[in-house]
């Protein structure tokens, strides 16, 4: 598993994402740390199974407090995207693609993240993507790469 992750990570141009330390709150820490094992982890209710993102300490579906972070497939579909051309952070020179990705694991489970591993112009709505990770100072930032990438 770890080897797979490393081979995927090599395909990402790290300089295009930069070094950003997310303000990883206690609530969200396992999300940002999942990359250590090469898996995307999303908060999930142990009682009803609902996956919750962003993470919350209470399930909005059944109000259970039994929330744990569990692996998801990391595979999904681009719902919408944009090619950002403005430099918001000095660590992230534009252009780069930001996309809302609907994960296959649960209807409506949507993540906003960068799409790397292909030219910005090659991203489209409906495109199949999979999670990958970029290491930063205090965690791993989940990103998406094209599913079809070799």
């Amino acid at each position, binding site marked *: 598993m770890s080897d797979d992750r490393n081979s995927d990570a090599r395909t990402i141009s790290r300089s295009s994402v930069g070094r*950003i330390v*997310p303000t990883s709150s206690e609530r969200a820490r396992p999300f940002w740390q999942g990359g250590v094992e090469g898996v995307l982890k999303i908060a999930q209710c142990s009682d009803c199974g609902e996956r919750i993102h962003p993470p919350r300490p209470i399930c909005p579906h059944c109000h259970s407090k039994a929330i744990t972070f569990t692996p998801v497939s990391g595979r999904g579909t681009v719902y919408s995207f*944009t090619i950002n051309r403005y430099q918001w952070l000095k660590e992230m020179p534009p252009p780069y693609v*930001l996309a809302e990705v609907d994960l296959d694991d649960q209807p409506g489970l949507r993540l*906003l993240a960068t799409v790397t591993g292909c030219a910005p112009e090659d991203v489209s709505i409906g495109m199949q993507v999979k999670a990958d990770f970029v290491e930063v100072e205090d965690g791993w930032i989940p990103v998406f790469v094209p599913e079809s990438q070799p």
Partner: protein
Amino acid sequence: MIEHSAVISGIGISEVGRRLHADPWALTADAALAAIADAGLTPADIDGISTYPGAIWSTPGITGAGVDDVRALLGINTRWHNGGGEMPGQLGSIIAAILAVGAGVVDHVLCFRTVWESTAQDRIGSRSATMAQVNERESHQWSKAYGVGYPTYGALWMQRYMHESGATREQLAQIALTCRANAMLNPQAVYRSEMTMDDYLSAKMISDPICLFDCDVPVDGSVAFVISRADNQTSGSRGIAFEAFGSAGGLENCAEMMWSRTSLKPGDVQLAELYDGFSIISILWLEALGLCEPLQAGLFIEGGERIALTGELPFNSGGGQLSGGRLHGYGSLYQACLQLSGSAGERQIKRRPEVAVVSSGVSTFASSLLLRAGR
């Protein structure tokens, strides 16, 4: 409905512009005193204050005065006040005033909104530099890790909207072009030079498919209103009536709530002053409010005739925030009041509108007001 117990009795606006380097408290006082005088009142008559967001810490320039500041500036005391960031859109502060007046707690509420973003960005250096000074909130981790800016969200909505509706950039350009055409008739608008379709289509892209002209412009300025009891107005009151408000989270829910509180229908609306922080937000409001069919806004505004000042549904008559400046919801309400009173000068709609809709915000931070002209 409680809306009928309150009216907009007076309106006021300060100087509005780019990089004014004016004291935001002075701008606030200018707008407030103008609104109070417009209502035929004196500061001593004001017994309530409501504002968005007030004296909270946010990005520099987003807020220029708080409730206490205004009490001190005008030398007044109040029986009730309200201010904060968590309300249903910027116009949520007006809705709170309606509720306070309607509940009989106060007679005359001063509502205000002051921005000085343009000067703040000029002093600090750039938009991104002011953004970097924002107070950290838990939600910021989801944007900061990925280099997400405010236009990102507008761009994601617009990209998806174009995908679902088949609307083209040429069609959607009419939001920016209509705002500019109206701004050319508004002496207080910040961008008043002509904009052509070619100008729009060749503009710098900010976050595809959003270009520079799809983004509203930060300004300095203040807008104020006096909300009074309908049965306690002076002879000078504008008497603009609240027909209904919507405050539910989400544009569709907000609109549904508003229409559930009135017998009027979308077809009765003669002026639409819709939030345009990004032009796509106006598109979403047009459809949510039922002013055109779902996913048909591109066709509805194509060519611009329908939404021109001379069209069936005049839109953002003062230039909106895209060309008039980001007065953050309050500017739209101000322009609606001018049109309903027949005092919009060169840009006055020929047949003075009787019914106007005004919206503020987007997503769950949203509200709308349905207004009727004074009798």
